[in-house]
């Protein structure tokens, strides 16, 4: 049982480049989330999804896009990367909603130079 798998673990992007952070879960969780973790700032929600085909913005969605074509996958797309997007990104999933316990991925460290 893999849980939540994020790839890549580490990436360096140049300003203006694009990339997709992958997130897959095998627990049949309907809720999935993308967070970013900045030093001393705690987690901030970027986007979330309550099921396949449904996504919604979180606290800091600008510069990102998501899609949820299947229950298992919730990729996060960065278009035109900027230095302000240097952060650690965490994907999480839960059953029904956050009250039912989260499972977090191991994170992706992204540096934009």
């Amino acid at each position, binding site marked *: 049982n893999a849980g939540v798998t994020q790839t890549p*673990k580490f990436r360096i992007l140049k300003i203006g480049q694009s990339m997709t952070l992958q997130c897959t879960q095998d627990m049949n969780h309907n809720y999935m989330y993308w967070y970013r973790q900045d030093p001393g700032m*705690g987690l901030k929600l970027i986007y979330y999804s309550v099921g396949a085909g449904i996504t919604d913005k979180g606290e800091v969605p600008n510069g990102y896009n998501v899609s949820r074509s299947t229950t298992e996958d919730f990729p996060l797309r960065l278009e035109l990367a900027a230095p302000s997007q240097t952060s650690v990104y*965490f994907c999480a999933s839960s059953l029904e909603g956050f009250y039912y316990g989260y499972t977090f991925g191991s994170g992706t460290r992204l540096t934009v130079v």
Partner: protein
Amino acid sequence: EDKVVQSPLSLVVHEGDTVTLNCSYEVTNFRSLLWYKQEKKAPTFLFMLTSSGIEKKSGRLSSILDKKELFSILNITATQTGDSAVYLCAVEARWSGGGADGLTFGKGTHLIIQP
């Protein structure tokens, strides 16, 4: 593999009670332990603990870390209905250069305070 285990997974108490939430961990190159409160979709930072035996306090909430026994507790005294939330524990490991900052989360404790 780094691991963080929180207990209990859920807890229902009455207003005014005192609760203790537990977090045990197994990580390589421990750096800090963090507690978050989650009421909506983004967790709110509560405490960061790096040293054993030093209690951190904020109002009715307090937390302490035991690095020898590898656990932390979060206490809430005189609970109020507004304390109802999911409480997340996360442990940060020193980044070895091979990936993310080594932040490993527990599954959370769902705390419900009944009037």
